[in-house]
């Protein structure tokens, strides 16, 4: 037993022999022992001595052991009370345990039973001490944190294991539109996110992509406002554990609405700026196209006036092709300048891929390119404008089909879809064509950048990137000169 700390024990028993026996045996075990011969004086001594442990006989005249137990526990719940019961007093023993006696021992008292009961009492006291310290710390920190939480600009929301909200600060109110009272009484954590997203977030917290397991750091997602509106947020969350058991989740929510708006403004601005600069580039593209058109028209004219059908026949396709290019350029410019996100709906990515692939298959065959679809089964829908996504697919497929030297031996283009662990979907268009040098790579998403002269408008990738960004997705390119190129689009799911 701990030298510096002596447990004080009060023994209450009306039988002198039992008192003496207990006193002797407990003192020899190193306890400080005091005695009282009935309930009343026992309680008095209890007040004077403040013992850690009380051992009391249960059957006593006047105030009996049960009453002693009740009063001691009422005043000092941390004190452990062991009751001593006689033969056939099981009911009283049970009652004592219900009143939070730490244990009971039967008469005649055996040394072994006594020491087991005392050990248990000591353990409980020790545990209680620890808890009390922790409680105190938590309370102090809690006060501080409570204030911190309340004044925090960010939303702070905690929930217990069953998803009930236990903390909901004003920042959270601002983001969500619920009052703290409302949230604490009637809001479930799943309602904080668009349908299905709570589960995704939960899995992410347990996973390791965002700083976990057990943590989620700076995950961009959407909050579901009381009104049903979606609010872009940056979420960090952590699981709280108590004795290795998970007890709660705390989330820190940063409202990104303003940031997103600024971002969008910026995108719009740079886009318009680029458009301004680009006017000269457009003119350049148009001039090239017109040049081809004029040469073609000249041949047609000359062929017609001189009744030279061959010449006219040579000229006409040039006219037509360049007409198509002008139309193409115009449409591209329109869809680049336009800001159209209205037609979003749950969309099956694979269906769009199949559609786009079937539309370009003829051209692929003409060019001798084998076009392979590698589509994941059972993909969730993405929220997207199908027409716009088709434009993206066409641009990527078109570029991939044009990525080959005519005499390249083995021309392959592969389109892949996959569900990613972070809840997004991957669309990958890959070719083993000429690749893109790093200097060119830096430019390809710029409007009107093209290495294809009159054959390309240079808007394809700029449009694709714009659409992907409008869908809250990302696009990136990986390429090695002479090895091939892969474009990857990640889109959020429904």
């Amino acid at each position, binding site marked *: 037993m701990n030298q510096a700390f002596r447990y004080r024990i009060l023994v209450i028993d009306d039988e002198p022999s039992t008192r003496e026996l207990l006193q002797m045996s407990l003192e020899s075990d190193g306890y400080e022992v005091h005695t009282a011969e009935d309930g009343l004086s026992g309680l008095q001594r209890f007040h004077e001595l403040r013992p850690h442990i009380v051992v009391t006989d249960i059957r006593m005249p006047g105030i009996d052991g049960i009453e002693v137990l009740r009063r001691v526990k009422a005043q000092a719940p941390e004190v452990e009370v062991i009751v001593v019961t006689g033969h056939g007093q099981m009911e009283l023993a049970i009652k004592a345990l219900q009143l939070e006696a730490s244990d009971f021992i039967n008469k005649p008292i055996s040394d072994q039973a006594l020491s087991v009961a005392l050990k248990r009492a000591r353990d409980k006291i020790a545990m209680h001490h620890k808890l009390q310290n922790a409680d105190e710390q938590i309370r102090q920190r809690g006060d501080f944190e409570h204030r911190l939480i309340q004044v925090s600009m960010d939303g702070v929301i905690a929930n217990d294991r069953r998803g009930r909200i236990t903390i909901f600060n004003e920042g959270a109110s601002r983001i969500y539109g619920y009052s703290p009272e409302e949230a604490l009484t009637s809001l479930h954590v799943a309602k904080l996110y668009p349908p299905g997203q709570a589960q995704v977030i939960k899995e992410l917290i347990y996973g390791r992509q965002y700083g976990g397991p057990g943590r989620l750091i700076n995950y961009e997602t959407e909050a579901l406002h009381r009104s049903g509106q979606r609010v872009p947020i940056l979420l960090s969350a952590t699981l709280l554990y108590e004795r290795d058991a998970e007890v709660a989740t705390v989330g820190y929510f940063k409202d990104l609405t303003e940031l997103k708006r600024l971002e969008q403004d910026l995108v719009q601005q740079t886009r318009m700026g680029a458009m301004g600069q680009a006017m*000269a580039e457009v003119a*350049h593209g148009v*001039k*090239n196209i*017109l*040049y*081809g*058109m*004029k*040469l*073609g028209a*000249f*041949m047609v004219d*000359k062929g017609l006036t001189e009744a030279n059908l061959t*010449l006219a026949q*040579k*000229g006409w396709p*040039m006219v037509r*092709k360049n007409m198509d290019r002008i139309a193409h350029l115009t449409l591209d410019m329109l869809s680049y300048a336009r800001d159209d996100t209205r037609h979003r709906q749950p969309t099956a990515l694979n269906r769009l891929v199949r559609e786009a692939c079937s539309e370009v298959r003829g051209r692929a065959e003409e060019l001798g390119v084998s076009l392979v679809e590698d589509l994941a089964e059972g993909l969730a829908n993405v929220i997207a404008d199908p027409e716009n996504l088709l434009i993206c697919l066409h641009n990527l497929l078109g570029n991939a089909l044009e990525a080959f030297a005519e005499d390249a031996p083995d021309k392959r283009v592969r389109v892949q879809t996959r569900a990613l662990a972070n809840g997004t979907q991957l669309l990958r268009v890959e070719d083993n064509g000429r690749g893109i040098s790093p200097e060119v790579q830096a430019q390809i998403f710029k409007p009107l950048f093209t290495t294809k*002269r*009159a*054959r390309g408008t240079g808007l394809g990738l700029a449009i694709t990137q714009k659409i992907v960004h409008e869908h809250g997705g990302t696009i990136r390119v990986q390429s090695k000169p002479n090895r091939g190129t892969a474009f990857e689009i990640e889109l959020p799911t429904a």
Partner: protein
Amino acid sequence: MGDDKVILVIDDDPEICDAMQTILEEYGYRVCTALDTVRGRELLEREKPNLLILDIMMASMDEGLNFAGSLKKREGVWGIPILIVSARPPAERGYGRSVDQDLDWIAADIFMEKPVDPEELIHNVQVLLGEAEAVAQ
């Protein structure tokens, strides 16, 4: 009409090359085409053309200009007239001066801005080959 005259067209757009060839052949010229200046140089040596029609917006503007410049510095077979076709007016982006002021500087005998009118092009070809009188602009 110069049956024996050879014209070299350098343009990285094969369709333009094709069209130019068809049209110029209609006027009785023999035409060879190159998609880049490397191939162009080869043809210059081999075919000894009487005129070069060059698009300076090839891979880079510099490529076309340097090429034209390097030709102009030479004498002999290299000293052939050059007709430059460009989608950009020469005063733009680094040329800095206008065509009329300083044709030498851009190393061309005639500079034409796209979209070039084919009839004018033919006329200029004939001028450069000494087959027609230059008209006052």
